C-alpha cells in the first residue's frame, strides 16, 4: 500500500496550532472533514474513538512520530492524513519525547488488513531517518505531499 492510496492530500497540515494530544487529533480530524473525507456530524465520535484508543496505550511510537487511529463505521474506506507540529506535542510516547509528526488513520471496522498495510507503509518509510527528518521540517502541505509522492516512488509496492 502506498501513501497515495489513503492519504487525503487536502487534509495535510504542515504547522498545526494545537499544543495538546486531543488538540492535534481534533485538528487533524477537522482537516479530514474540511477535505470531505469524513462527515462533520461524525467528527466528535471519531475524535472520542481515537482518544479512547490512546487511553489503551499511546500511539506515539518514538522518533517524534505518532500514529493516532481508530476504526469507525462511518468510513467505507481507509482515510488518513499527515500533520506536523514544529514545536512538538506531548503524546505520552514510548520514548517520552514530544511528537512532531502525526499520521492519523480512520479505517472501516471490517478491513483490518488495509489498516495493517497502511501501518506497514508508514513504519517502513519512517525507518528512513532522512525522510522522517524532512517531513518534520516541512513548511507547507505541498512539501509534505511531495515527500509522500517521492516515498511512494521509492518504496516497493506490496
Amino acid at each position: 500500500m502506498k501513501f497515495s492510496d489513503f492519504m487525503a492530500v487536502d487534509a495535510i497540515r504542515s504547522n498545526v496550532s494545537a499544543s495538546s494530544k486531543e488538540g492535534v487529533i481534533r485538528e487533524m480530524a477537522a482537516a479530514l472533514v474540511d477535505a470531505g473525507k469524513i462527515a462533520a456530524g461524525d467528527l466528535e465520535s471519531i475524535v472520542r474513538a481515537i482518544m479512547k484508543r490512546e487511553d489503551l496505550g499511546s500511539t506515539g511510537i518514538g522518533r517524534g512520530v505518532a500514529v493516532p487511529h481508530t476504526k469507525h463505521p462511518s468510513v467505507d474506506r481507509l482515510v488518513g492524513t499527515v500533520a506536523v507540529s514544529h514545536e512538538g506535542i506531548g503524546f505520552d510516547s514510548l520514548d517520552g519525547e514530544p511528537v512532531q509528526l502525526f499520521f492519523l488513520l480512520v479505517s472501516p471496522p471490517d478491513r483490518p488488513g488495509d489498516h495493517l498495510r497502511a501501518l506497514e507503509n508508514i513504519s517502513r518509510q519512517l525507518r528512513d531517518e532522512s525522510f522522517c527528518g524532512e517531513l518534520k521540517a516541512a513548511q507547507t502541505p505541498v512539501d509534505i505531499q511531495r515527500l509522500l509522492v517521492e516515498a511512494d516512488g521509492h518504496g516497493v509496492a506490496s
Partner: protein
Amino acid sequence: MASHLEQPSVSSERDEATMQEKFTREVVVGMQQGLHARPADQLAREARKWQSRIELVAKSQRVDGKSILEVLTLAAESGTRLVVEATGPDAREAINAIGRLFEQNFNEFGSTESGLHESGLHDSGSHSSGAGQPAPAPESTG
C-alpha cells in the same frame, strides 16, 4: 470458531557466530485485527525487557522484535505464522514470555476464540468480502 491452541514447539541450538544459546519458536497471530499497533507495542516492550536479541521471522522478512517500527513492517494479519528467535543469556525466558503474549492473543478483544464481540458487526463465520477474512488461513505462498 475453534481456538487453535497448539503445543508450543520451542527448539534450541547454539548461535554459531556468538556461541550464545538460541531459542526458536513458531507462533500464530490469533488476533482478528492482526499484529497491529497495540500488540506490536506490547511485543516490543516485552522484548526490550530481555538482554537477548529477539527477532521475528516472516516469509521473507526478519525484523528486530524490540522495535515497534520494525514489528509493524511485518503487517502480520490474523492467521500469519511467525518464528520468534531469541539469542542470548536469557533466551529461554524471553522466548517463553513472547510466546505467552501470542498464546493470550495480547489480551485482545475480538480474538478468534473470544465469545464477546464489541457491537455492531456480526461476522457469521464465512462471508467472502475480499480483504478482511476472519478465519486463520495461513497462506502457503513461498
